[in-house]
């Protein structure tokens, strides 16, 4: 089973480190200081968004039977059948935005500078080297992990199991408090 990125939403504190790391990884220089000055501007393919009291790193989940691939009329959006990774081929993309219109996660966006669809590609260069995708590597709280669906499900099960035998798996009290207090103004 191939690996993908999974999210423990309860561990996200909304620092946006993933956004920065993603943009840098998809720059030419791959160095923050110079990436910022590149044209076209490297853009993150993950966006941390408010979700009531929580924050959520919103990103392509590389769906099974992806709607964007079905909707793409130019063959630019493809699914690697071996790994399940969904990627855009910029050369074929004409920017018709059908993929944006059908993505149920809001994870495919328009890149106004290139006029092409824009989404998570699971960092092919990094993963080829055996490294985690940039957002996962940058996440300081372990909210993002690069794993197989099975291992992620195992982790989740472990958390459930621990809590049923009385081991607290809740967020620390101060974090719960902070989340409860920010709900009022987070837009």
């Amino acid at each position, binding site marked *: 089973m191939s690996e993908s990125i999974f999210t423990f939403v309860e*561990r*996200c*504190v*909304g*620092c*946006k480190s993933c956004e920065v790391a993603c943009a840098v990884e998809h720059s030419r220089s791959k160095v923050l200081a110079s990436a910022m000055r590149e044209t076209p501007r490297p853009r993150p393919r993950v966006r*941390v*968004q*408010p979700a009531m009291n929580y*924050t959520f790193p919103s990103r392509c989940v590389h769906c099974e039977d992806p709607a964007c691939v079905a909707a793409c009329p130019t063959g630019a959006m493809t699914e690697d059948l071996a790994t399940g990774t969904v990627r855009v081929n910029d050369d074929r993309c004409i920017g018709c935005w059908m993929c944006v219109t059908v993505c149920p996660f809001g994870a495919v966006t328009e890149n106004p500078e290139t006029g092409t669809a824009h989404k998570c590609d699971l960092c092919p260069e990094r993963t080829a080297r055996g490294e985690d995708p940039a957002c996962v590597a940058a996440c*300081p*709280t*372990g909210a993002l992990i690069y794993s197989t669906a099975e291992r992620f499900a195992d982790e989740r099960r472990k958390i459930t199991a621990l809590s049923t035998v009385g081991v607290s798996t809740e*967020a*620390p009290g*101060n*974090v719960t*408090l*902070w989340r409860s*207090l*920010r*709900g*009022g*103004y*987070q*837009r």
Partner: protein
Amino acid sequence: MTSVQIPAVESALLSIAKKKGIKTGRDRLKEMSPQCGFGELGTCCRTCYMGPCRIDPFGDGPKTGICGISPDAMVARNMLRETTGGAASHVGHARHVLLTLRDALDGKAPYEIKGAQKVLSLAKTFDVPTEGRDLADVCRDLVDIALEDFGRQDEMPNNWLSARAPGQEQELWKELGLMYSNPHNEIETAMHASSMGNDADPTSLMMRVLKMSLIDGWTGLALAVDLQDVLFGVPEVSVTETAAGVLEAKSVNIATHGHNPVLSEKILYWADKMDEEAQAAGAERINVVGVCCTGNELSMRHGVKLAAHNSQSELILATGAVDAMVVDIQCIWPQLAQVAKCFDTAFITTDPMVRIPDAIHIPFEPQRADEDAKEIVREAIAAFGRRKGKPVDIPDHKSKAVVGLSVEAILDILSKVNQEDPLKPVIDSVASGDIFGFTGVVGCSSIRFRDGAMTEEMVKNLLAANVLVVTTGCTAHILGQAGFLTGEATDKYCGEGLKGVLTALGEAAGLGGPLPPVWHMGACVDNSRIVDLLAAVADRLGVKVTQLPAVGSAPELVQEKAISIGGSFLALGVSCHIAPAPRILGSPVVTQLLTQDLSQVTGATVQVEMEPKGAADWMIGHIASKRAALGLSSTPAV
């Protein structure tokens, strides 16, 4: 949770901005959201270049900074830097006023001493002889006393603190090692102690926070206010109007914005004299209005109309009706210059420390105050010339407001009831429960809370429980705009007890109606007036300030200054409600200290409540516990 509508004037201004395609702070907040949790928890440290370091609040990741600093020390260190920023602002403001007074006395700056009464009372406080002396000479002595504080290296107690602060509390501060000498040395020490590789003990750092807050309170607020009263006179009660509806389509509208009245007093003076120039340009008159705390300063002393609190400062520019916005220091959004560019508005910065791209900069120096002020007024008239005939969008909203309630003005009213012992009527009312207690509702206006009318809703709940509210700063604008600064509000919102007291006081003072239930005591620096009032009441009762049935609230915290002001109340023993949460939740130690353990030290704690009703309930409960300790009835007679 009650569903609350966005205040009407705010709503009108926002729709004007929207219609014109002007982005507002609300739009920028939305773009910024979500905001970083490390920052909100206070556990992001950028003090050195091994960092930035962030503590994983979930415990699997880093538990300390690279240098090994604990999250508790990180939080306390960050808080010390915030507090120092706040204190530096107020001390800088005070020193500017002090130097202006010195130059005025030396004939180098064109200002008169309008507060003779204040000079005499300060002389008494500082044991300066007055018998047979010129007012100017007495004043010079006071200036020297204040100047000594800024130059001393003898570690002797600061003059303004030791002579002005209440005695019992000073004893406590001495015990805790909070007394300070030269404020500049302390600001230096705080920055030093909070830089890389110095103080890493959260308790020690938090004591520094309290000390820095005292500096804010006494060498910042008290010194600034005392000397402003000397220069510009002690505020007296007057009636004015608030909200954006005070702009006049056919007049030259000059909005004065910022905090330091040294400039705006002169603008007001010259605007009065230059009406003819304005009329020659086709205007009816020059209409000076106040924004933020400069607005409060002018309003307190001259009844100038209040156009906008801080978070509305960009919105009133969107009316297109402001010809000049003249700013001095603090809380000036750089965005203002960008909004001004959309119209004929002259956005004028005046302080060398406040330079903003795309602003017109007219350096203001107290020594050349008249020339500079005239030049600024002429810029405004010229801007009116460009605007004349173009459509403007001024909302209709405005509310009447009673302003100018300095401690002196309050005592003046009370003395009409009891000449011998002016505080007695208040104390009797507190004893009877007609006044259940006092709340100082102070601080900023925050777009995070405006749409829910946080301050207004909280105050409604307090008044219904017979809690008398005093206010300063942008919260005073908010409450003014919502109509709380009127006698009508007493009838509308107060419990029977408070209504009776305010009606009696108003009649005794010859106002022909009740006093307002919310007393406008000035700008944010004027929080020292609240402290003076509390100290006077405590002194009259022979109790400590912390024993009073009084509490503070900064319901819409924005500025670092609010942190240091809040700290000065905590040091005094006055508990404070605050919203949003200060950046302490990443530290169990600091959270525990501020919300609980501090009560063992100064008698005060901090409470965070995000909902207006919850905030009011906590304050009422807190007041009840203070009353119980004094042997007074502890259920509000509503």
